[in-house]
């Protein structure tokens, strides 16, 4: 085992593998930074180049590219409110308000550090559980997915801020929007008005672009000035402050990583869920006196970024153990592995353990390297938030539309971005929680789908499965806590 660990490291650092990994990291960062191009597209683009490489180089090249896409994406999420890749959607909720406060550098630093360390965390966990992969993957079924999604919905309540009624309405609206489209149980097309575009439902990326980027740009133009509000011009904080923030919020960071790894290991929930669950969990544990979540709390950047990169370590697990990809990108990776002669499955864990560990090392090194490169650029990039809004906004709006359009290459994506842009703009002005809407949008379908699957497979008693029951207990505790916390605080104030 230890020997394989070492051999893997040697393989990664041997030439030309390390060269290919470097190229991959740069390409991945650039693609991630470019809005609308997520992990799967990036991998699909580089795939043909990997065919002629040897095993280790191909692994280093593809995994290197893949593991930093979201790292690059977090920067455009924070600076412009445009998600570079799907999983960056949750980062915007607090990242962009931080940029408005003149703390773009700090937010980027925190995002990069959280994603790099999260990636390493996920990788370490992956390495530790390689021997017992199979049973872990197999304990999660539809009842557990259902309860995880419900837990996310429960977090909705705490995202609502000081106007709970508006928060819950926003959450319900998000859940309802997620139900638009063809459902999978009997194939009814709901709320589609006979429009083919709506059959596949409302996509996350154009929605986030509308709710945040478009809405914020309109707000910027109305307000005048630059993204970072003028009075804070002097305090453009540096990225290192953000890195330190991750260590200050160590508990939050570790919790988010664990959530990310679990969701990565179990295929079927999808990557976006990890970030939003981590975000919800962070908002849940907000301390008194801290900035409210959604208004620029650094924890809202750390949690989703840590969870996302930790998840990618986890997502390799089902890919390696069963040849069942844990995410869209992993599906492409799987194809590439096969062509260079690596067959996922038991053999990879027995005979080619060094290759498996080479993958693990690549993940870890690429994560740190990618973050380091962006760190060097962070300070310069964060100056963008000081540019005159009336010139920056039209450029970002153009980028928004390109990013939205890339989702399905259809005008429908742009219409979604505009409609949700108007709704998001109104929500911002009238103090409705856009985070709650987004969480609802991500979770609605998953809740419904796994509820019906659970009932069809296990009957109504599905809830009594041990892990599902454990999650029920946690959900009840979360609800109870959100009632108890204000009461306890009041009592403390009285005592003091």
């Amino acid at each position, binding site marked *: 085992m230890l020997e394989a660990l070492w051999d893997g490291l040697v393989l990664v650092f041997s030439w030309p593998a390390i060269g290919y990994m470097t190229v991959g990291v740069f390409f991945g960062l650039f693609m991630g930074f470019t809005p609308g191009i997520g992990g799967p597209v990036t991998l699909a683009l580089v795939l043909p180049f990997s065919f002629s490489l040897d095993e280790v180089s191909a692994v280093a090249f593809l995994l290197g590219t893949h593991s930093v896409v979201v790292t690059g994406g977090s920067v455009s999420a924070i600076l412009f409110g445009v998600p570079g890749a799907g999983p960056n959607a949750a980062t915007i909720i607090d990242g962009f308000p931080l940029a408005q406060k003149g703390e773009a550098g700090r937010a980027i630093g925190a995002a990069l550090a959280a994603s790099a360390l999260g990636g390493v965390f996920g990788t370490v966990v992956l390495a530790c559980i390689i021997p017992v992969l199979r049973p872990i993957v197999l304990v999660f079924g539809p009842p557990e997915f259902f309860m995880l999604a419900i837990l996310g919905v429960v977090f909705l309540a705490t995202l609502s801020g000081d106007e709970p*009624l508006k928060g819950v309405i926003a959450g*319900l609206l998000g859940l*309802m929007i997620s139900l638009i489209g063809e459902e999978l149980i*009997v194939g009814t097309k709901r709320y589609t008005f006979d429009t083919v575009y709506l059959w596949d439902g409302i996509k996350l990326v154009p929605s986030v672009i509308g709710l945040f980027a478009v809405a914020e740009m309109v707000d910027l*133009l109305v307000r005048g000035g630059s993204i970072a509000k003028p009075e804070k011009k002097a305090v453009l904080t540096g990225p290192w402050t953000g890195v330190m923030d991750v260590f200050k919020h160590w508990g939050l960071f570790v919790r988010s990583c664990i959530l990310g790894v679990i969701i990565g290991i179990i295929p079927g929930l999808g990557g976006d869920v990890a970030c939003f669950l981590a975000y919800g969990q962070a908002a849940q544990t907000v301390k008194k006196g801290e900035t409210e979540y959604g208004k620029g709390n650094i924890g809202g950047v750390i949690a989703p970024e840590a969870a996302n990169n930790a998840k990618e370590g986890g997502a390799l697990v089902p890919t390696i153990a069963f040849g069942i990809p844990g995410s869209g990108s992993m599906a492409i990776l799987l194809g590439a592995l096969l062509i260079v002669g690596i067959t996922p499955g038991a053999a990879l864990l027995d005979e080619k353990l060094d290759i498996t560990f080479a993958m693990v090392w690549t993940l870890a090194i690429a994560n740190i390297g990618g973050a380091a490169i962006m760190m060097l650029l962070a300070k310069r990039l964060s100056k963008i938030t000081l540019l005159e809004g009336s010139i920056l906004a039209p450029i970002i709006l153009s980028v928004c*539309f390109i990013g939205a359009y890339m989702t399905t290459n259809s005008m429908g994506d742009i219409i979604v971005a505009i409609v949700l842009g108007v709704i998001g703009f109104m929500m911002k002005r009238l103090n409705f929680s856009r985070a709650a809407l987004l969480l609802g949008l991500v979770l609605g379908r998953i809740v419904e789908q796994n509820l019906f699957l659970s009932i069809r497979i296990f009957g109504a008693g599905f809830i009594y499965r041990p892990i599902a029951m454990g999650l029920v207990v946690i959900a009840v505790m979360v609800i109870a806590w959100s009632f108890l916390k204000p009461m306890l605080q009041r009592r403390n104030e009285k005592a003091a």
Partner: protein
Amino acid sequence: MKKAEEIGFAAFLVIVFALFVILGWGYAKRPRIVPLTLSIPGLALSVLNFGNSIVKAKRAGTDQKTKRAETSPGGPQAALSTENRKILVIWTWIIALAVGINFLGFMIALPIFLLAFIKFFAKRTWKLSTLIAASFTLAVYLVFYVGLKTTL
């Protein structure tokens, strides 16, 4: 003015949830369970919110009347209505861009939008607006058409 927005958006939410309920009612037994369990409370809450916004508007209205007697009339009112006009103008620009993309495609609509917006909305020089429009379009062309070998 913000009160009118508040009431307007609350009404919009009521209509949206009512639509969700009405359309949801028509689906078969299984596909309608979840939409109805979510949209009916949604409708109830948004009606409540609508009521709230009206009550708040009334209360604020009486406050404003007493206040207006003291301060000079017209001042803040006028400022708000210019803000609203600005909001409408910006959304018109955005929708114009979308329409342009639909009929002309990205590579023609984007430079025209950028040029016109920076010249007429941001009121900058022709030189600067042309420079930005041209360099952004070129960047898009290089990344998507040359680099990624795809069309927009």
